[in-house]
């Protein structure tokens, strides 16, 4: 055995081209581009700045939920309660500001806090009892849904003070009007893309999703990390609540009922594995856009909305199939 031997040989650095081809976001990105090209040729209205601004506006609420959902799914969890928590947060903010005569900013702050509280509770129940996240968040979905209807007395809250709808305001970029809310969503995507890939916290989230025990044995405080992830996700649902209110201009107790599944759809289409440990918020961003582009493009082509749902369903199954196959290859 000399110093020059290379035991465990057979490893080579994959070329940049190969790495790009096999990167998990490549597939979703290609799908997005193909869809965009297809719709550009199919309808004149698709390829305009105004339409793209509209797509981003349409997806910003689900997109923000999907960031939280991505974090949770990366830890091999799942959150069915995100849409309901958001609905409760939005109705709280709206009612407290409009009728409870609280200062609007305080109402927003309390709404954010309550949403984070729901996340914290999800995390604690998942981690400390412990219970499967599917069950905990299914329960929390019903709790938050019921609370929304009890608290709102089934009434839509209108005539909201300015700060609650401020994010719905626009500024011109060239000839296109962009909402501030879209910027918030994009900023959050960037922030969490960085947190996941650039910080130790992010690495620990991935490690946790790979194997809780391996993470623990390497000194990761897994329990605290899990609870933290659910809490941060809750806070993001609070931001989504504010975006929702600002976009619709009302507090609507019926809002967000399919958003939990829509957010999971976006995460999965974006290439994040439901088994945890692999994926990215960049992928989720692409996934959110894919869903938005399909909805928008098909709508512009005059296709009935039920077909949009059909196609989304097919995309999800396709994405999960790709994930399964690539995971098998990796083994």
């Amino acid at each position: 055995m000399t110093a020059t031997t290379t035991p465990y040989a057979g490893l080579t650095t994959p070329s940049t081209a190969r790495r790009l081809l096999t990167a998990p976001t490549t597939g979703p990105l290609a799908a997005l581009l193909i869809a965009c090209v297809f719709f550009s040729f199919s309808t004149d209205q698709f390829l305009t700045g105004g339409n793209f601004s509209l797509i981003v506006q349409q997806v910003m609420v689900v997109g923000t939920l999907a960031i939280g959902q991505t974090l949770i799914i990366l830890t091999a969890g799942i959150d069915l309660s995100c849409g309901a928590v958001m609905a409760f947060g939005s109705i709280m903010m709206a009612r407290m500001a409009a009728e409870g005569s609280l200062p609007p900013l305080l109402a927003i702050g309390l709404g954010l806090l309550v949403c984070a509280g729901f996340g914290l509770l999800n995390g604690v129940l998942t981690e400390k009892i412990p219970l499967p996240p599917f069950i905990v968040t299914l329960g929390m979905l019903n709790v938050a849904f019921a609370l929304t209807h009890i608290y709102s007395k089934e009434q839509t809250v209108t005539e909201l003070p300015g700060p609650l709808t401020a994010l719905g305001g626009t500024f011109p970029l060239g000839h296109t009007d962009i909402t501030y809310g879209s910027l918030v969503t994009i900023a959050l995507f960037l922030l969490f893309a960085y947190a996941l890939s650039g910080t130790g916290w992010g690495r620990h989230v991935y490690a946790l999703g790979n194997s809780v025990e391996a993470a623990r044995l390497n000194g990761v405080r897994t329990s605290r990390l899990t609870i933290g992830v659910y809490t941060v996700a809750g806070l993001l649902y609070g931001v989504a609540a504010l975006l929702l209110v600002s976009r619709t201009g009302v507090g609507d107790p019926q809002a967000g009922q399919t958003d939990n599944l829509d957010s999971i759809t976006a995460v999965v289409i974006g290439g994040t594995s439901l088994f945890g440990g692999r994926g990215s918020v960049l992928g989720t961003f692409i996934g959110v856009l894919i869903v938005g582009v399909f909805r928008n493009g098909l709508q512009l082509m005059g296709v009935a909305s039920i077909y949009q749902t059909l196609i989304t369903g097919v995309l999800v199954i396709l994405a999960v199939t790709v994930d399964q196959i690539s995971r098998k290859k990796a083994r």
Partner: protein
Amino acid sequence: MTTADSPTPVLQARGLVKRYGQVTAIDGADFDLLPGEVLAVIGDNGAGKTSLIKALTGAIVPDAGEIRLNGEPIRFTGPQSARAHGIETVHQDLAVAASMDIASNMFLGRELRRPGVLGSVFRMLDKKRMRQEAAEHMADLKIGLRSLTQAVETLSGGQRQAVAVARSVAWARSVVVMDEPTAALGVKESGQVLDLIRRVRDRGLPVVLISHNMPHVFEIADRIHVHRLGRRAAVIKPSEYSMAEVVAIMTGALTVDGSGGTVVADSEAAKAAGVQAT
């Protein structure tokens, strides 16, 4: 075992107990690791070797018993507290994150941050330095993994084991514990791990090696801790016993008395194992 003039054990345990419901995985086990030695821990499947070293490395908290590090009583509250004391472990299941690359696994739980505000405020990882240092550690240990940016799941079982071994050796400051580090390895690779263990010992670090491979154990161990039914059955020197005798101690056919002599506990079994009491 220990006489007045023998050195203070680096890691020592007395009367460790760990129960899992009805199963008693550790049943009053003692343990002594002396400075600079390679101590092999052997025993049948389910004897409790893994449980013992998990208790010694903070991975589980024992129900009873005492652990001493360099003579001082110590309680490990978790793996990180053992790591903080320089104890590194190669776990039987390797404890690697499969989808993460080799360098990330080497620095898992001990990531380096960029200097200045980037690190303190923005918590930015110093990926370049981690990759460099990981490469240096691998080179130091003469482990020739050529690309550190490859996901661990793309490695062979043996290569994964090499990563786990390298990680432990790179960070250990007082003790290295390896739970069957050669289990997935071929002849050549096993030889390399044994070589690595020797180099670690030459650096002055004691090594605990759990193995089912008797020739390996006899080749490298300074002393052999024989574990049986959740506790230490004997500690012997490989120079003073034959492999057959050690196997007989492991299975309970022979027992070792206080003075180090063997006593036939079960003459039928001893005869079957092909040994005679000394």
